[in-house]
């Protein structure tokens, strides 16, 4: 092992974690120089400082930059006001994209969260929990390109090769071109998304589930509650904050969908979503203005989700 690699390995494995721990310890040391009353006021900001620094540089600045570009022409040379937005709203492709993104939002989000919850709750009750969870988790660990290769074969038109069409044929049906006809193709892409992301919902919800005390569940069962009552009256309400976290995250993943569509259809056959539209405008058409307008619209779509979250935090604070 050469010296550079060795030094890097030490930095990576020891140095970086040590620095983060030292930072936390240093906060109390810094606060000691303050009068007693001032400490609780400054303390939260010291704990928030590293996160805000990262967020400011890597997300807030790019967002401001994007908003500015959305008001300029394709080469970001002249200010054009809201022209990019007007152009966008006038395109049929844009509304097609919105329709697809809404489909993703509705079907992908609900099915992924519901499935994740069901699997987390069910696996929690069997001895082979880790095995099932691993099987459901594996798709998340497969790279997009490899997932694209295999799903293209799953949906292949030729029933000799395409798994789905072979199954359809075995049941006496005609082979279908799954990816060429809208809206069926968007559903087919959503299935790929669900396959990949249920593992995510499952793992997080499962972690939340472990925080619910067993005594509570058993007490309910002893009182004669059946399993459905236990699920809907106890597990779901207690897990609600975690479900909200997973749900919010999946909503955003749905809105940001890019890789699955890009790898599988390249946005052709009317499968474009907001993510691929941005990419085409930015990197194929090289229109920074139009692309940034698409990104800004994406940012605006999550306002309702955030309002929901604010209400939820208020409620949570009152109860604790």
């Amino acid at each position, binding site marked *: *092992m*050469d010296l550079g*690699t*060795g030094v890097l*390995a030490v930095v990576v*494995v020891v140095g970086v974690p040590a620095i983060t721990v030292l930072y936390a310890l240093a906060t109390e040391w810094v606060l000691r120089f303050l009068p007693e009353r001032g400490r609780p006021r400054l303390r939260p900001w010291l704990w928030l400082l590293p996160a805000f620094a990262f967020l400011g540089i890597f997300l807030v600045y790019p967002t401001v930059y994007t908003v500015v570009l959305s008001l300029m022409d*394709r*080469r970001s040379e002249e200010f054009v006001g809201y022209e990019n937005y007007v152009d966008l709203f006038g395109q049929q492709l844009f509304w097609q994209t919105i329709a697809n993104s809404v489909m993703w939002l509705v079907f992908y989000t609900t099915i992924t969260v519901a499935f994740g919850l069901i699997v987390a709750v069910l696996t929690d009750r069997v001895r082979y929990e880790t095995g099932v969870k691993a099987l459901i988790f594996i798709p998340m660990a497969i790279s997009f390109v490899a997932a*694209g290769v295999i799903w*293209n074969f799953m949906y*292949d*038109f*030729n029933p000799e090769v395409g798994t789905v069409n072979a199954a359809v044929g075995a049941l006496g049906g005609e*082979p279908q*071109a799954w*990816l*060429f*006809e809208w809206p069926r193709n968007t559903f087919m892409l959503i299935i790929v998304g669900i396959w990949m992301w249920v593992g995510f919902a499952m793992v997080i919800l499962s972690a939340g589930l472990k925080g619910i005390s067993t005594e509570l569940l058993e007490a309910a069962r002893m009182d004669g509650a059946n399993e459905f009552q236990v699920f809907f009256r106890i597990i779901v309400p207690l897990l609600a904050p975690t479900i909200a976290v997973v749900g919010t995250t999946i909503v955003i993943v749905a809105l940001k969908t890019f890789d699955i569509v*890009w*790898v599988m*259809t*390249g*946005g*052709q*056959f009317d499968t474009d979503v907001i993510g691929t539209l941005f*990419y*085409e405008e*930015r*990197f*194929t*058409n*090289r*229109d*920074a203005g139009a692309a940034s307008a698409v990104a800004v619209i994406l940012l605006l779509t999550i306002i309702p989700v955030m309002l929901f979250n604010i209400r939820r935090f208020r409620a949570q604070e009152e109860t604790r």
Partner: protein
Amino acid sequence: MPRNRFLAGIAVLSLLAAACQPSASQSPAAPGGPSEGAEPLGGSISILATWTDAEQESFLAMIQPWVDANGVEVEYEGNRDLSTILTTRVEGGDPPDVAGLPNPGAMAEFARNGDLIDLGDVIDVDAMLADYNEGYIADGTVDGTLVGIFIKIAVKGLIWYNPQAFADAGYEVPTDWDGFTDLVEQIRSDGATPWGVGLESGADSGWPGTDWIEDFVLRQSGPDIYDQWWQGELAWSSPEIRAAFEAFGAWAADADYVAGGPNNVLSVFFGNGGDCLFADPAGCYLHHQASFMSGFFETNFPDVAVAGDTYDFFGMPGESYTGVTQSGDLFGMFRDTPQARSLMQYLVTADAQQIWVERGGAISGNGAVALDAYPDDTSRRIADILTSAEVVRFDAGDKMPAQMGRAFFGAILDYIQNPANLDQVLSDLDAVQAEAYGN
């Protein structure tokens, strides 16, 4: 936490990695190279291009004599998603010194943004004209400024066939347009399938169909109409372009003429589009694709595909006009460094071009590269088609603005999926044309 075990693991892995690293590249005595004086350039150069795997090796072999003569350290990066990476790097203020350009349309964008360096005072254009057809200079020029040079060329619109299958069925290679269409009809009336077509190519699906349309436009309506078309001066709904689509659809969208029917055409990867030539009995007898298709045949059928024996090609005959379509890999300069200047000067020389030609898979635009340099008869004949053609045109879809080119891909897919919808497909293209040009 098992941190110790983890550390030990890292150490083992590092040793493994060190053992796996290639030994310092051996450099044989360099032949030629452009070194004018005794002073080697030194320094380094960063290169970004689309070539990966075998093509990457060929490119590195091509520049090796220059590297040896000048002692420059090369940082080469190959990526198939060139357009995204290059755009991001350039706009992010971190461009490579020299880079492959995704296509002439993208080259024009970079040039108009002021990202590309004028090669007019880097390369001696007059000297270059001695070896290159004027067309290559023109295709690398944007608004009167030379910004791109060709590393290699691919000849498009070749018709591939299996000589053994032809012999078994008693078919002859056609020499003119009527003979060509007669052959297609003959195959069909014999109860066989004439064509194998595959349009799938990931995010760029549809492009093989654009080559068909271009070949039809050039042969049916001639080079002038062809030029007006890609320049945006001729509407897509014009009779000339419509005729080309209809000629393509008559074969590729008709289950009697194409293997597996239209749905198969849409879902088969283009690299497997000609696989049916090798089936027994033949799944198809003809396949339309560029010169690089031979590479796919040989990888897909390692023992079966033999040039001249089980696969061969003929040039697509002229209809009302004759002509050849081609595409090529362009290179441009994003940073004005002595190393970049020197490399660009080197890349256009016959010495440099010959290296890739000899390794196979490339046709050179440099007329000084002798036909003898081509490694086999097939590639020699392909090069000959190019040099002997009176009318040569660059891939129209690649020369259009990127937005137009992409809409063209999509139109091919829409049309094959639903041929009755041609009016709609063409008027949609007209709408994009109205917007995409003039930016």
